[in-house]
């Protein structure tokens, strides 16, 4: 208990760092993932190829390697940004591939007839998208997106080893101060559990509100 109370500001900083990484990377990944999913279902072949390559490569890249390439490689490439920004970018790119797959399979669950019916009623593309396809696809993707975001929160721990302030990194100063290493890890674990459980709670509520049985 002492470990937490004595170092509340340190833990708070780490907790906020993890929260910040998760939030920024999550928003970026959602936007990017939806765009790439749009590419993957588009009738233009070049866009589809780009989308497929993006997803296949990123899904098969170890995240540590991606961090290594982005945080240590890109500065050699002439791109200099703060480490936190780099970490957010790496996490967002990685997660966007999984979001894209979730969204794409959501769009694919909408039966063809729905789109055909909408068009035969004279709806434009935007209307078909907004009024018919997205409301149905959106419900199907809530829970896979939830588990992707939980994984994102857990993956953000890797950033700590690349000198970004986040929760896991707090064990180091605590260790140097001579606090019980086991207890400092227990509080780190509690911190992560708080974040992942709140995400899963949020998405459970969302699913209950919006989900439908089909």
């Amino acid at each position: 208990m002492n470990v937490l109370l004595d170092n509340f500001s340190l833990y708070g900083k780490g907790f906020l760092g993890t929260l910040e990484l998760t939030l920024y990377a999550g928003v970026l990944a959602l936007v990017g993932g939806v765009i790439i999913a749009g590419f993957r279902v588009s009738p233009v072949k070049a866009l589809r190829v780009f989308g497929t390559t993006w997803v296949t490569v990123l899904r098969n890249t170890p995240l540590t390697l991606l961090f290594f390439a982005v945080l240590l490689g890109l500065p050699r490439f002439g791109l200099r940004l703060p480490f936190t920004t780099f970490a957010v970018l790496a996490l967002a790119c990685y997660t966007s591939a999984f979001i894209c797959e979730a969204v794409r399979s959501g769009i694919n669950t909408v039966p063809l007839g729905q789109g055909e019916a909408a068009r035969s009623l004279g709806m434009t593309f935007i209307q078909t998208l907004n009024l018919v396809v997205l409301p149905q696809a959106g419900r199907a993707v809530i829970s896979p997106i939830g588990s992707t975001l939980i994984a994102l929160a857990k993956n953000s721990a890797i950033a700590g080893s690349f000198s970004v302030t986040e929760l896991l990194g707090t064990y180091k100063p605590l260790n140097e101060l001579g606090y019980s290493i086991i207890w400092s890890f227990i509080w780190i674990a509690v911190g992560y559990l708080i974040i992942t459980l709140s995400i899963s709670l949020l998405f459970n509520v969302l699913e209950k509100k919006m989900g439908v049985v089909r």
Partner: protein
Amino acid sequence: MSSALYDIPGPKALARHRLYAWITTALLAALVGWIIYMLIHTAQFESTKWVPFEYQGIQRLLLTGLANTLKAFIWAAVLSLAFGALFAAGRLSEHRVIRWVSTLVVEFFRAMPLLVMIFFIFIALKVEPMMALITGLTLYNGSVLAEVFRTGVNSVSRGQGEAAYALGMRKTQVMTYILVPQAARAMLPAIISQLVVALKDTSLGYLITYEEFLYNGKLIATNLDYDLPFIPVVMVIAPIYIGMCMLLSWFANWLARRERHNPKTKGTPVATTPPQQI
């Protein structure tokens, strides 16, 4: 291509799509061109940065790294399959206490970030890097696999188990002769997708100084004599990592496709949605 969003294109739409295709291709070509320009501009193709890859010592270093990665992966794969089978059996058990304990263990290890567990084992329990990595991978992937196994066994239609009991089989016999063989068929793609995750996560060993592929790559990349060849190292290592994972993913997809066309399993729904490959 058959999605609810688009109609079959007419001549006007086709012309428009062609235009979009050209614009996309031009933009992508520009991007690739810029990357190549930057690579040359920042002198990434200088011989000082590439010569080390011709040295035998460096090649041996990379190969030992690769071998260590594969060693950790194979150990982790075998152990997590065993762990998963054990705890899936625990969660399916008829004894309440065993069920609760297994559920608690599985849910806890699934909820914890893998890296936190690996660090905990490495730093707090002072285990050597390789064992720490393998243990962490086993606990996490084993827990996920336990869930895969459990849903797989539960998805076999109830009549199968009931018929077996009616024939007088014991619980173990029903499990090993009836339920598991049918479940295994449907679960195999999901299991292999999870092994891809384990393979990807062996690179976490880099963070606890386990001498695996990425770690040995870093040793080369941080060498001043070779002019810090970070990007050449990434260009050598990344295709190998991605290639290995893609091969395994492709194998999982192939199995899944074969299962779908297999007359023996036709009509039975495939048990599990493949787990999120993260």
